[in-house]
């Protein structure tokens, strides 16, 4: 049961969810329903006002560093340094994540950016910027993927690559939580659907797709008492 307010306004009012490993969950909801807030809470970018959540056993409030190691965030915002080259951007990420420097090159290779590795990011198209974010994710290899409208304006090859990354993460026992507006775009990977309205979560009867989750290890559990 997570709750979060901004000043006087309660954005999340008792969200309860359990996500098992190997499962990709899709999250829908109207604009302003708190989906981004929920993702930000799970990334430790925000602290919950009440309640608790844990990611693969690490509590988001008391062990944020362990959570950051396990969680990766992806959204249309590129989050890059425009005056650095692609390689410099990813090498920086690798250093900050404590990953070997060589992983940057292979990540750029995989996302098809090897040819522009030494060019400044300032000139990149939005598709290339998205791939750069994806390269950062590849260097990180998080166990929990949090994706905020990842398919928006993303071309078909990029989308295919993203879905591959998601599937690989699930296959290795990880999980994913994907926020989308357009349900169809995430159908290829999502196993379970939820919807968030008025700050509360409920399973969405909409579309059960894919095989049932193979593991019983709780990957992501949120519990706690409100008030």
């Amino acid at each position: 049961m997570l709750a979060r307010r901004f000043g006087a306004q309660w954005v999340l009012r008792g969200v309860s969810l359990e996500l098992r490993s190997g499962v990709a969950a899709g999250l829908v909801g109207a604009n302003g329903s708190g989906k981004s807030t929920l993702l930000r809470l799970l990334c430790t970018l925000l602290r919950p006002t009440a309640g608790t959540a844990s990611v693969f056993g690490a509590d988001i409030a008391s062990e944020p560093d362990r959570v950051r190691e396990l969680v990766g965030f992806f959204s249309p915002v590129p989050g890059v340094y425009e005056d650095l080259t692609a390689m410099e951007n990813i090498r920086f990420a690798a250093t900050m994540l404590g990953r070997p420097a060589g992983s940057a090159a292979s990540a750029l290779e995989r996302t098809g950016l090897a040819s522009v590795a030494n060019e400044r990011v300032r000139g990149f198209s939005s598709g290339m910027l998205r791939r750069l974010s994806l390269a950062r994710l590849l260097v990180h290899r998080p166990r929990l993927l949090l994706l905020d409208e990842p398919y928006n304006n993303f071309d078909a090859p990029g989308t295919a690559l993203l879905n591959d990354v998601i599937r690989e993460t699930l296959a290795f026992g990880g999980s994913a939580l994907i926020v989308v507006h357009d349900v169809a775009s995430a159908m290829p990977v999502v196993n379970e659907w939820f919807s968030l309205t008025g700050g509360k979560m409920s399973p969405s009867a909409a579309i059960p797709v894919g095989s049932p989750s193979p593991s019983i290890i709780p990957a992501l559990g949120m519990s706690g008492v409100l008030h």
Partner: protein
Amino acid sequence: MAFRDEWLRARAVAWKDLMAERRSKAGFNSVAALGVTILVLFGFALGPDAEAIRAAAPGALWLAALFAGVLAFNRSYQVELDGGALEPLLMYPGARRSIFAGKLLANFVFVFLLLVIVIAVSLVLFHITVPSTWPRLLLVVLLGEVGLVTLGTFYAAMASRSRAREVLLPLLLFPMLVPVLLAAMQATKALLVGDVMHDAGAWTNLLVAYDVIFLISTFLAFDYVIEA
């Protein structure tokens, strides 16, 4: 070893800030030019009498460095705010203070280069000769710079993300810097004329105390400021 990891992260942040700064079109050259312009304006305000100008030179020098340097502090966060890179930065595991340390380092290098230029131009414009006490003078410059950069980098973490940042940063920062500026100006003035009264020692001690107090408190407080 955890400390080594933190150092690697801080170093990566500093390198990244300096690289981005060097490659951006605006940047150091403009700030340095501004510093020189301010010196010239002080010359007009205080001169043309050579004695008057020479007496006022230490003050003018530090104020020029301050006014130009203030631009550097907001810019050091701009590099993250422009590309939306602040959130990814905050999501990397590891202590936040490594980020602060990295930005401190980058700003220290930047302001040091600025001071070199401002001092060189001051020597010429204000008819100052390099005194025999120049090693102590260098120490005073470095200590003053540490105080300036520490609080500047710290307050910019807040100001750069608020409205009216151009006025908010100086408004918050300048009153806090009064002890540093007083001490640096007085010590500089004393050392430039050979420090006959041995004043510089007391001011240098004040600089050291100030630097220590605020380095510690800003490092402790940075977590609170950057997470919000």
